[in-house]
């Protein structure tokens, strides 16, 4: 009888833990539901308005019926600054990853990959302060510009691209490299045209992740890209940007600006969702392809 009691108690404890940990999952996922829900409720109305993505941000206005206008320059600025940053960080990141994984130069490859890993943990605001700290001394004319914004974002993206590309290269079986070698193809050709091509879906996923991360960054851009509500004129001027717009309008006393902040939030959330689904599909495709080798 006593033995039976103990068994029941142990079973019961196990079930209680199952329920408690299940509640943890609900608590953890509740914010995601709430963020998506609030963005739709508070930002859906403006986002799905015609011209929200093609007109300039509004001046402050607190009258209920006052006109809400769009986030056009911020979308444009984000595309430009993230595009520039990708132009820098993708080649640098991919080549560095090739060095770390394909050419095993004593401990150097491992050192590069460990450095990249540690750099992913450097707070993004430090990356901004680092770029600002350099330009404010050596080239204050463009301290607040698309150039410095792009540099700060690429400092954030390079480590991510290095790490994910390295992972993707590692998935390519060694037999592929050996087959290339056996055919007498030079190492660099084999690396670029066979190994890299085979791992392309993985590399693209990493690039997408890095791009989305950069598109959502506000902290390092506060003192590199700066703030503007106007359309793009020159790379050496400060520019508009979505996360910075959200930050600035979030605390605005004007209801139309707050609405625009929520619209921009919903826009970013939808982008992130789409990119995540796409990158998952790419990883899946890559696994299937590698399984066939």
């Amino acid at each position: 009888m006593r033995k039976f009691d103990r068994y029941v108690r142990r079973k019961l404890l196990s079930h209680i833990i199952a329920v408690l940990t299940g509640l943890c999952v609900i608590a953890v996922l509740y914010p995601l539901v709430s963020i998506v829900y609030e963005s739709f409720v508070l930002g859906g109305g403006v986002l799905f308005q015609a011209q929200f993505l093609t007109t300039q941000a509004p001046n402050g206005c607190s009258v209920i019926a006052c006109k809400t206008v769009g986030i056009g320059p911020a979308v444009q600025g984000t595309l430009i600054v993230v595009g520039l940053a990708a132009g820098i960080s993708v080649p640098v990141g991919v080549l560095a990853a090739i060095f770390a994984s394909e050419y095993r130069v004593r401990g150097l490859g491992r050192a590069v990959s460990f450095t990249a890993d540690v750099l992913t943990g450097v707070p993004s605001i430090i990356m901004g302060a680092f770029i600002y700290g350099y330009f404010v001394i050596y080239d204050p004319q463009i301290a607040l510009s698309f150039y410095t914004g792009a540099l700060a974002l690429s400092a954030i993206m390079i480590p991510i691209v290095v790490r994910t590309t390295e992972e993707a290269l590692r998935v390519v079986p060694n037999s592929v490299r050996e087959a290339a070698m056996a055919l007498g193809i030079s190492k660099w050709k084999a690396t670029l045209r066979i190994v890299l091509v085979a791992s392309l879906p993985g590399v693209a996923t990493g690039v997408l992740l890095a791009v989305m991360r950069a598109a959502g960054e506000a902290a390092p851009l506060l003192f590199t890209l700066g703030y503007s509500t106007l359309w793009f004129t020159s790379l050496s001027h400060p520019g508009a940007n979505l996360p910075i717009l959200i930050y600035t309008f979030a605390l605005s006393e004007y209801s139309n600006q707050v609405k625009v902040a929520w619209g921009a939030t919903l826009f970013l959330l939808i982008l992130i969702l789409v990119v995540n689904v796409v990158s998952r599909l790419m990883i899946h495709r890559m696994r299937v392809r590698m399984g066939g080798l």
Partner: protein
Amino acid sequence: MFFGLVTAVGLSVIGLAVAIVVIIVYGSRYSFQAFGFSFLWGTVWSPTTDVFGVVFAVVGTLVTSAIALLIAVPLALGSAIYLTTHAPPWLRGPAGTAVELLAAVPSVIYGLWGIYVVHPYMATTIEPGLKEYLGFTGLFDGTPIGLDVLTASVVLAIMIIPTICAISRDTLAAVPQAQKEAALSLGATDWETTRVAMIPYARSGIVGGIILGLGRALGETMAVTMLIGNVDRIPTSLLSGGQTIASLIATELLSNSGPLQESAILEAGLILLVIALTVNVIARLLVWRVLKGGGGGIVE
């Protein structure tokens, strides 16, 4: 030739790390000359008299991160255990994906959501409640305004949960099947299997995940800046406004009040960089040992 190019670019990644340290150190030279090590424990931050001590921001950073960990660790570990042991198979994929999506939401969006959803709830419900029942501890002195250390910590906790949860889940899932079956065959229940066979095996990975979460909390900027109240003094209670190093940099680096303040802010950045690097190196070493060179399932 290709080898030369690849080597040069590879080494430039190490160069980037060195450049970050060198430039931040160089930028903080005025402040270091003016205050020396007293910068570290000076309690006055006064741009008008050009006296700068950073202890208030260090305290703010450590306190918010500690509270965030207190809230996040049990929830993240609980979720990780549920997702590896108890969850029905059809739920594991989608719930895991949702947790990873939480990690992909930009900081500034957590900030906006914090201001309009968490802040009113904290100000009207949670904080008055805490004040009434736990007010005697002195931790909850002051007016519950909702833009304070506690609210910033709560949102910070929500932001680091995905990191801790995803890495714990990956290391728990990496426990060999035979290890679990050995416990089950001795008659252990699900929970006993988790406790005896899985958690000890995954321990250093879980600890690594927690430290990685701590690293993220220490440097998190936008959401904290929007919620902590931005007051340049040591917080007197959890309901008073404060400042973290990251939010100090975000709010004051561009305020143009002279080279000494700018330099002091960069020195504060140097302190944050040292703390974050230490924490990250420890975490990576732990996670690398368990997942054998893996990134821990999450990139950030």
